[in-house]
């Protein structure tokens, strides 16, 4: 499904895509949102014009995959791949809530077949392979399909010697696919290792939240790791850590800024600057890339 269709599909559901300030006409009237961070009431039109960043406190709201693609790539350049790839229920997982039902709900809510959208695009004129996760789909957890689409994106970048850009947000491995999910960590990391070995540039962007087995695989194996301000990023979730160590976590623990301070990421970049920053990074990484 090309990106334009999504926007259509989502409009019909009264879901508002982020877009350039030049296109406020698409926004339905009279929708107001309360900022999760500063509690300001924001007009939805403003929020969309600001790429879903609160203009009062700078809080970065989640973007859907289509919104993210719209905000990051050169207009009209995105072509999706593997859109039809769909999850099965290999474990016939039925504890509490059947996996199948969760998937149905996710499909309906997001209009997507899985928690990642991959394809080709251009950023600042650079042809790239791109993958964008969508937290609305089962918390953007990684099961077989996400792992497969990620691996294919790495392989496409490798075979075409095009830089890869990945935008991550995820709750972790998808437990409903059990060990098949865990093994996607190894699979995607192995794919990342091959791309790295071949000297093809790879930039990752960590958005809120990025946790668990997903963090501990392909996202942190990039040549340059960026994160959005205030994104929660970590391996183990804060509640489990608190339970284990039986003490309160320090303020700011597991944020982008914490990751920066501890040397784990290259830079914290506000959403409004991401497109330009990635474009410029691609200038550097593509200068003579791959002559190895």
């Amino acid at each position, binding site marked *: 499904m090309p990106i334009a269709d999504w926007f259509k599909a989502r409009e019909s559901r009264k879901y508002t895509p982020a877009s350039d300030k030049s296109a406020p006409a698409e926004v339905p009237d009279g929708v107001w949102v309360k900022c999760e961070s500063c509690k300001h009431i924001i007009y939805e039109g403003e929020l969309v014009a600001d790429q879903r960043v609160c203009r009062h406190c700078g809080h970065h709201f989640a973007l859907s995959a289509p919104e993210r693609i719209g905000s990051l790539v050169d207009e009209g350049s995105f072509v999706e791949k593997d859109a039809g790839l769909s999850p099965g229920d290999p474990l016939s997982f039925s504890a509490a809530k059947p996996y199948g039902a969760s998937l149905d709900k996710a499909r309906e809510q997001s209009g997507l077949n899985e928690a990642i959208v991959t394809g080709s695009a251009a950023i600042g004129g650079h042809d790239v392979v791109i993958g964008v996760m969508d937290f609305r789909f089962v918390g953007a957890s990684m099961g077989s399909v996400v792992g497969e689409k990620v691996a294919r994106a790495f392989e496409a970048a490798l075979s075409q010697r095009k830089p890869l850009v990945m935008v991550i947000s995820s709750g972790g*491995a998808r437990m409903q696919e059990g060990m098949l999910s865990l093994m996607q960590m190894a699979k995607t990391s192995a794919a990342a290792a091959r791309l790295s070995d071949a000297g093809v540039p790879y930039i990752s962007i960590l958005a809120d939240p990025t946790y668990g*087995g997903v963090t501990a695989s392909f996202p942190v194996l990039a040549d340059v790791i960026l994160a959005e301000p205030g994104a929660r990023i970590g391996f*183990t979730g804060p509640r489990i850590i608190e339970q284990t160590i039986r003490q309160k976590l320090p303020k700011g623990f597991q944020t982008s800024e914490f990751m920066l301070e501890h040397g784990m990421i290259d830079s914290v970049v506000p959403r409004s600057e991401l497109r330009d920053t990635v474009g410029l990074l691609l200038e550097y990484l593509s200068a003579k890339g791959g002559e190895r």
Partner: protein
Amino acid sequence: MTRRFVMEFERPLVELEDKIAELRTLDLTDKPDLATEIAILAQEIDQLRHETYEHLTPWARVQIARHPDRPKTTEFIEALFTDVIELHGDRLYGDDEAIFAGFGTLSGRRVVILGHRKGKTTKENVRRNFGSPHPEGFRKAMRVMRLADRFGLPIVSFLDTAGAFPGIEAEERGQSLAIAESLAALSQVAVPVVVAGIGEGGSGGALAIGFGDRLIMLENAYYSVISPEACASILYKDSSHAETAAGCLKMTAEDLVGLGIVDEVVPEPFGGAHNEPEAAFVAIGERISAALDELDGQERATLVQRRYERLRAIGVYA
């Protein structure tokens, strides 16, 4: 069978065993009826014992995998390898005793050994953080993986961890990066990698040294994306549903053969490896050696390519 530690699923059996042991201390010379009754009870106990241990549930296997007397990585190494030299440290921050890394010789074959290392005593367990590594443990493993790669030594890795340690310092020092980089490194080492699941296989902390060209598992070892307790507490907001979760997660060796992840299940002594560790050592040693034999003589590039293809094939989708 003397037991130092009774697992939850054994309790009904153990209660009967205790009862009969008590009855047997009585003087039965003038109580022939009671003697007969005891004999019948003994038979019933035998029956229950077989039922209990011959059709172990996933949850029972998890308990066996966590049994305090279950043989640990250290014991497997002691039993199977000669000329062992431990290599310490990540050359960056520390030496994490929750992971063993070093050289060893298995039936004359020089290899690199990796493994999660739980302790036998409380003191050992404190030093080894109960087998749950910090980032420096994974970074040590990576360093030694690269040594194996440089010097053409096959890697034998023993899995037995509840998972990477969930703590503040572990996050501060990059638990996720250490695991991811270990995964990348392990996918690229151009030497045979044989992995043996001997106890717990907890999530990313197990996986970091837990895949390769062959993956064998002891019958009662488990390998899972999440602990049954954590899974239950997410799904049911109640960790007492762990037994259900253990079944749903398909985390036993047998299940994982079915999913195409595990190559071989290594049978354990009756009731679990803790009942007869020597038998488990021998069985695992033989299977590791056989796997290494199979991988002998493969080209470096072929090994890496095939390992990648193994990983690439994992997943179910339409």
